[in-house]
């Protein structure tokens, strides 16, 4: 395996065995500019004889009909989150049928799916493309006990990889909360409703074969809302249950009472105000975590007080964003995944709550990803470094325990990208000289907000000036790092074995931004 140093000084392989050659990361938009006019992968043609019923007798029969063979690629979507029953059900069936060496390419892996680790050990899965890895699977891969190629991609990067042909999905298994006998699918209704099916839409459009798995077969035609139309779906399988509703919706997130998170939230909002991004027509993406959700509370108060209406809210949509939309604070919500039941209902009822696919959301290789129209995004992080690089993937022990998600995509697209995190967790500082793994390049991060001060990227002197003028607690990132280390001490850096690549981390444009290596 040949390694090179990319523009961020990170060691990355030029080739991932079993996957192919990769270019090293150079800059956020270099490759995007060069790709204009390049050919996309050819989409499979699904010519089908006239049919009035695509129902397969069983999951096994559907798999047999799909033509799936050892070594092929299967995909799933993660909208049912920890309530998803489809991934374990399908993998168990494939194992029982004796498949080997499949490439597992879900949009992400729900935290609860420890079973994936078992199927890697069994040999059912021998290649993994995902957005992130946690729990038992993260422990397994980080231990080096199994040696399989792993490629981590952002949500926009995955859509790009599928459309340019880096991921060729042979069979897509779609958890379908509502489905009719010809494969029209909606995520808004049914006992396992999950709202948007944004990632599944991309899979359905591009996979060679699509199997819808549903526990809510409705009379044809499904109405009133169709997320995935029947012409993308080859077979329909009815099962008893595709998920556990209690674990699909996270439940409306409560606003944090943590003083640390509240301080971070307040300063994030004050920074947005100082940078003058909150104006009529403003667009925004927030997380559903403590500080970023709380920032929305301050934002909402301000927008109401000033009579400001935003143009759109974007992203994984939580109840708070849906509520702001209902109150008319944003004209439109673009929803690629819905976090709770309130959101699902809002999308079903509200025509300006629009379901979007992953490509529209964040693919850098199309003519208009919505992330590029964001005025501001607030993003969480595990750790950051003095060059503003962000890690959302590995813990401070080097173990895989996070997901790239839309982090890189929104940071690159938004006019103001704010990363929020506590200055230390469990006595370990969050600001390092070098992050363990770079997932989002510092070149695309404008500000880092902690409870002990706001660090603004030197690339944005005008924001620094505005923040200082507004008397915000602006601090140089190295000074903040030193201040925190006075409290926590300086942790001993982890030593890695750079001959042992555990996962290749792609930037959204397909270049390699970093590698996750085995700790010594």
């Amino acid at each position, binding site marked *: 395996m040949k390694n090179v140093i990319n523009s961020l000084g990170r060691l990355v392989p030029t080739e991932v065995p079993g996957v192919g050659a990769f270019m090293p990361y150079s800059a956020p938009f270099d490759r995007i500019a060069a790709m204009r006019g390049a050919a996309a992968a050819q989409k499979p043609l699904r010519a089908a004889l006239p049919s009035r019923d695509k129902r397969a007798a069983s999951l096994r029969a559907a798999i047999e009909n799909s033509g799936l063979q050892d070594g092929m690629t299967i995909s799933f979507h993660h909208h049912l989150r920890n309530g998803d029953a489809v991934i374990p059900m399908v993998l168990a069936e494939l194992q029982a049928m004796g498949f080997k060496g499949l490439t597992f390419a879900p949009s992400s892996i729900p935290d609860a799916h420890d079973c994936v680790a078992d199927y890697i050990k069994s040999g059912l899965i021998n290649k993994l493309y995902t957005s992130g890895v946690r729990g038992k699977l993260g422990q397994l891969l980080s231990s080096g006990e199994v040696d399989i190629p792993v490629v981590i991609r952002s949500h926009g990067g995955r859509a790009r990889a599928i459309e340019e042909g880096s991921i060729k999905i042979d069979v897509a298994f779609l958890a379908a909360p509502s489905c009719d006998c010809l494969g029209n699918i909606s995520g808004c209704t049914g006992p396992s409703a999950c709202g948007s099916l944004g990632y599944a839409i991309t899979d359905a459009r591009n996979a060679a074969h699509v199997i819808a798995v549903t526990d809510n077969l409705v009379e044809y035609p499904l109405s009133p809302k169709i997320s995935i139309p029947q012409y993308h779906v080859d077979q329909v399988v009815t099962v008893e249950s595709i998920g556990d509703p209690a674990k699909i919706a996270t439940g409306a997130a409560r606003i944090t*009472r943590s*003083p640390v998170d509240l301080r971070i939230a307040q300063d994030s909002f004050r920074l947005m105000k100082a940078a003058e991004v909150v104006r009529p027509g403003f667009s925004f993406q927030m997380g559903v975590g403590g500080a970023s959700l709380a920032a929305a509370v301050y934002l909402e108060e301000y927008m109401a007080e000033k009579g400001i209406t935003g143009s759109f809210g974007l992203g994984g949509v939580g109840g708070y964003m849906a509520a702001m939309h209902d109150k008319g604070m944003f004209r439109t919500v673009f929803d690629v995944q819905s976090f709770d039941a309130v959101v699902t209902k809002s999308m079903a009822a509200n025509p300006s709550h629009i379901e979007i696919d992953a490509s529209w959301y964040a693919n850098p290789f199309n003519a208009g990803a919505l992330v590029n129209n964001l005025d501001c995004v607030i993003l969480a992080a595990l750790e950051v470094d003095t060059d503003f690089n962000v890690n959302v993937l590995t813990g401070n022990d080097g173990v895989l325990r996070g997901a790239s998600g839309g982090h890189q995509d929104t940071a690159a697209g938004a006019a103001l990208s704010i990363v929020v995190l506590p200055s230390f967790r469990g006595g370990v500082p969050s600001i390092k000289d070098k992050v363990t793994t770079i997932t989002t390049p510092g070149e695309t991060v404008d500000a880092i907000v902690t409870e*002990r001060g706001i660090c603004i990227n030197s690339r944005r002197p005008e924001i620094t000036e505005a923040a200082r003028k507004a008397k915000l607690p602006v601090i140089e990132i190295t000074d903040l790092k030193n201040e925190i280390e*006075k409290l926590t001490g300086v942790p001993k850096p982890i030593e890695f074995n750079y001959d042992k690549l555990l996962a290749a981390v792609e930037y959204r444009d397909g270049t390699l931004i970093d590698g996750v290596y085995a700790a010594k």
Partner: protein
Amino acid sequence: MKATRSMLYIPGDAPGMIQHAPIFGCDSILLDLEDAVALTEKDSARKMVATFLSRFDFKDLFVTVRINGADTEFFEKDLEAVVPCRPDAVRLPKCNGPQDILAADRRISEIEEKNGIEPGTVKLHAMIETALGLERCFETATASPRVTALTIGGQDFTADMGVQKTKEGRELFYARCRIVAAAHAAGVDSYDTVWADLQDNEGLLRESKEIVGLGFTGKACIHPSQVATIHKAFIPAEKELRRALRVVEAAEAAKREGKGVISVDGKMVDAPVVARSVHLLELAELYGIERGGF
């Protein structure tokens, strides 16, 4: 010294909270060795508070330590551990009269001298928690120049009176008025008791506005989420600020011109009004309101 509107109690055995003290946005913290600390944790809390006082940068926070009462076995140990670390002040609970202040003053003076600390460095906040203490509060406030504030402990005071503490606070009305008056007469600050219901910030705001109206200079609180509400109550009204500015400008002009008499809007203004006006403008500065910006 800047205004201390909010005084946040932090248990002395809660290092996680103490290390975050500078981010809570309060003007002052009260590191508590008394009620918030269990009997079994008194020794470790005392050590921890002393360690933080010696090594931690509290930035521009005013730091007070509430020690255990003179009638407890912890009183001496608390003073011996805390005073050498030079907190801004020590809060003395259950202060029943000048004799309690004089006893504490003597002990603090000894410790200051022993540790080479300038005499009078560590101030005293007298906590009035009994009817007897209330009756003697002016004498308490004037017993030593070390005393810079009177405070009221609502829970203990109502217990001593044999009445229930209510949200309306009628049972504390007289005590509050008396303490505020005594504090003003003695030229020291006055701090109100805590609001216990963390879920009811509206009640906290109502009570805070009431005590601001009575003349208290600050209010204690038990959770960082209460700080902003208390500060909201202390925001000076624009009309007040305009007048304060006129008073201060007139006082400055009188000083420049060597005049002994200050007159504003055709009326004579005396020294306490000037002092109050200066305080209001300082308060305004805390809210980011600049002179002339109102």
